[in-house]
């Protein structure tokens, strides 16, 4: 039995081993097939997913870098401090980075990490084009980093700072935005009286040097630039092709048209170099921005003043404000004989003020006109036989939420207002601004005269019968540039008239214009006033080869260029 059992076991063992081998082989074959058929596609799928995720992540880094760089520009308020036309953003280490240095400060770029996961890093450079007043932001993003990048993407964004865009044109007279409200097709609020004896002279320097480095690449500046096509046609009709004004020059038998040079005399004299209808860069004005800008100026009136001038008879000479950071309030309603106010800093005039009998304001800084806080009070500065001299800014800032008028009025043949810098009439909301020269008097602006908003009216008219040279003729003299910019959707500019017994001269002067714009950008110098809004608009986007951008960055680094940013 023991033999039988042993043999039976031996036979049983042999069968089990054979069957097991077949089964094992079959299953091994199946497993190999499974591996061969399933794993490679799955691996490919995973790699594809990973690649897709990396690229999506890098696109996120790129967009984040653009936004971050724009914000950084905004916060710094200056991305080209050394004025070499280029600045770096997104530079590490920010905490220890100071102005100056060079593009080696890029290091390995700014990493973007979300929930502990590295999405990549970026570098960014911003360059300024002085001709178009635009900046081009170049951003390149790399994954995982710039040391051993496996993926690179790059994009460029063309953009414009608001104020630079607001005063982007260089013309003696620039109109931009929605000007339909002027009645440009012949309404009474635009143009002049046909039977008047007024003169309007609009002159451009033939060229100007855009980068200030010399006569190379001069840029032609038209006398008048009007971006709005309807307003352009209306301007030709009202100012140029008016049959009362004779023919255009050269004397081709046709009415004057854009591009002609006018030099002829009728009852009205018009001298206009050229009229252009060009896509204007002076069109980025909008209601919201204007409101913020007005709030900046008006905010000075909400601060605690360093000095207050309230009396109008008990003093003869007030020296107020000895530093540009000081704030002075003028609450007097009249300035009369012998009243002279001199000072520095920011002068806020609240409510109506009439100046007469030789009163004077000589101010080095900004004069800000705001409406009265009382129920019916306005904010009218009436200059009779008196004088205002401002080196800085004269700003009419009506309250956007109050239906009141803030205006400047010359109302006497001996009235004189002279602004060296910038004069601004800014309007938004329900407030309104006026500029009226009548009965003689003179307003001279050496710099920038800006009328920004839609509920704004301007008129120049002299004392009836005043001949050229008579004191009763009103004079508006702008040496620099006058910019009229109206936001879209509003009622349009309300009035722009040059009427009888008046002389208006607009002559483009690049240096004065730029100085005026700089003053407008700097705003009130009082330390408690929020800085003026400085906003970057993104206007163009294109994707470019990352290697090209990196090569440009490397060239900047090798050249030791100054990134030109102030430290955060």
């Amino acid at each position: 039995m023991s033999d039988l059992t042993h043999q039976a076991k031996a036979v049983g063992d042999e069968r089990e081993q054979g069957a097991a081998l077949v089964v094992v082989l079959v299953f091994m074959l199946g497993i190999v097939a499974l591996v061969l058929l399933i794993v490679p596609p799955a691996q490919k799928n995973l790699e594809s997913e990973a690649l897709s995720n990396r690229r999506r992540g890098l696109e996120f880094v790129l967009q984040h870098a653009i936004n971050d760089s724009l914000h950084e520009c905004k916060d710094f308020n200056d991305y080209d401090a050394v004025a070499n036309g280029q600045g770096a953003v997104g530079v590490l280490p920010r905490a220890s980075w100071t102005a100056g240095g060079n593009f080696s400060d890029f290091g390995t770029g700014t990493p973007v990490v979300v929930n502990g996961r590295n999405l990549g890093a970026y570098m960014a450079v911003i360059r300024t084009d002085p001709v178009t007043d635009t900046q081009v932001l170049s951003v390149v993003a790399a994954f995982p980093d710039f040391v051993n990048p496996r993926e690179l993407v790059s994009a460029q964004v063309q953009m414009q700072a608001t104020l630079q865009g607001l005063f982007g044109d260089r013309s003696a007279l620039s109109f931009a935005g929605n000007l339909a409200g002027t009645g440009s097709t012949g309404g009474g609020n635009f143009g002049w009286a046909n039977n008047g004896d007024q003169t309007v002279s609009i002159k451009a320097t033939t060229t100007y040097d855009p980068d200030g480095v010399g006569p190379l690449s001069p840029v032609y500046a038209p006398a008048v630039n009007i971006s709005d096509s309807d307003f352009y046609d209306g301007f030709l009709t009202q100012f140029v092709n008016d049959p009362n004004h004779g023919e255009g020059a050269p004397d081709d038998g046709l009415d004057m048209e854009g591009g002609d040079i006018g030099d002829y005399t009728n009852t009205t004299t018009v001298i206009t170099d050229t009229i252009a209808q060009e896509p204007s860069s002076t069109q980025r004005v909008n209601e919201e921005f204007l409101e913020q800008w007005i709030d900046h100026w008006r905010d000075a009136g909400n601060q605690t003043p360093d000095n207050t001038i309230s009396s109008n008879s008990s003093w003869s000479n007030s020296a107020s404000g000895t530093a540009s950071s000081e704030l002075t309030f003028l609450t007097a309603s009249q300035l009369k004989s012998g009243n002279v106010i001199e000072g520095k800093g920011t002068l806020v005039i609240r409510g109506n003020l009439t100046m007469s009998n030789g009163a004077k304001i000589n101010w080095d800084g900004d004069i800000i006109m705001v409406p009265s806080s009382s129920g019916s009070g306005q904010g009218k500065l009436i200059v009779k036989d008196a004088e205002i001299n401002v080196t800085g800014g004269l700003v009419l800032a009506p309250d956007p939420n109050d239906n009141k008028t803030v205006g400047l009025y010359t109302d006497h043949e001996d009235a004189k207002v002279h602004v060296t810098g910038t004069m601004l009439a800014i309007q938004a909301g329900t407030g309104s601004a006026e500029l009226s020269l009548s009965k003689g008097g003179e307003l001279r602006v050496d710099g920038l005269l800006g009328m920004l908003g839609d509920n704004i009216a301007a008129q120049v008219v002299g004392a009836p019968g005043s001949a050229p040279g008579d004191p009763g003729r009103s004079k508006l003299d702008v040496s620099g540039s006058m910019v009229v910019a109206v936001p879209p959707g509003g009622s349009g500019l309300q009035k722009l008239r040059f009427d009888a017994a008046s002389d208006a001269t607009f002559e483009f002067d690049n240096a004065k214009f730029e100085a005026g714009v700089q003053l407008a950008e700097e705003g009130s110098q009082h330390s408690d006033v929020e800085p003026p809004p400085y906003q970057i608009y993104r206007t163009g986007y294109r994707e470019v080869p990352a290697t090209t951008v990196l090569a440009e960055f490397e060239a900047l680094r090798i050249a030791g260029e100054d990134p030109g940013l102030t430290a955060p």
Partner: protein
Amino acid sequence: MRVSTSTARGLTFVEIMVASSLLALISLVSMSLLAVLQRSGITVAKNTNIGVDARRVLTEINRDLRQTGWAYDEPTNANFERGPSTATNPPGFTATVFGDTSLGALPALSFRKRTGFAGDLDADWNQWVVYQVVADGNFNNVQGTPARFSLTRRVATDTDNDGAITAGEPDITVTIAENLSRVAFARPDGGDAASLQDDLNIDLTLAITLSSPDGSGGAPPPGITVSYRERARMNNLPEDRN
């Protein structure tokens, strides 16, 4: 004892038959499993390719759309539209058709890209791109024989900036996707121009269909369809406060 010994050394006919049957059964199951695995592998591979293709196409459209938008003109934005629009199309180019192939349309996106910043804010819109859905017969081995489409991309560059594509200027049309069962281009807000920000977005829908590996002929099973949807945003803006 001898008899017993000789019996232990051999296999009976019944045993051989049982073993053969078991082997055949195992082989049959194994082969069936292999066939299923093979079909499954092929399907996975095709699905992977679909995913790769769809992502490539969507990425390409997305990149193109990012570089379009609006040229600057404050009073009349609509007239200066460069992005997909039924109002303005490059001369000789397909009009933009927002629509859905499942609703009978052959959608097309026609727009311009801004390629440079050499000029002012309205310059260098000189590359014209058209994504056109083309009818491509039917899926014959898919239940219901649904309509089949392909997608072409035409890119032309107005190198001399004269507003037209003339002889000698690059103008290339390439088929970038096939076996599409559905394509839809839509604006999320339905094209209400009242909201510029909304109009900067475009929804892209792409569905690719595969015939089922499990049959063909007179009564094929439903196909395998994979759908992708993505929202693209145009980045060239007349006014975008950042």
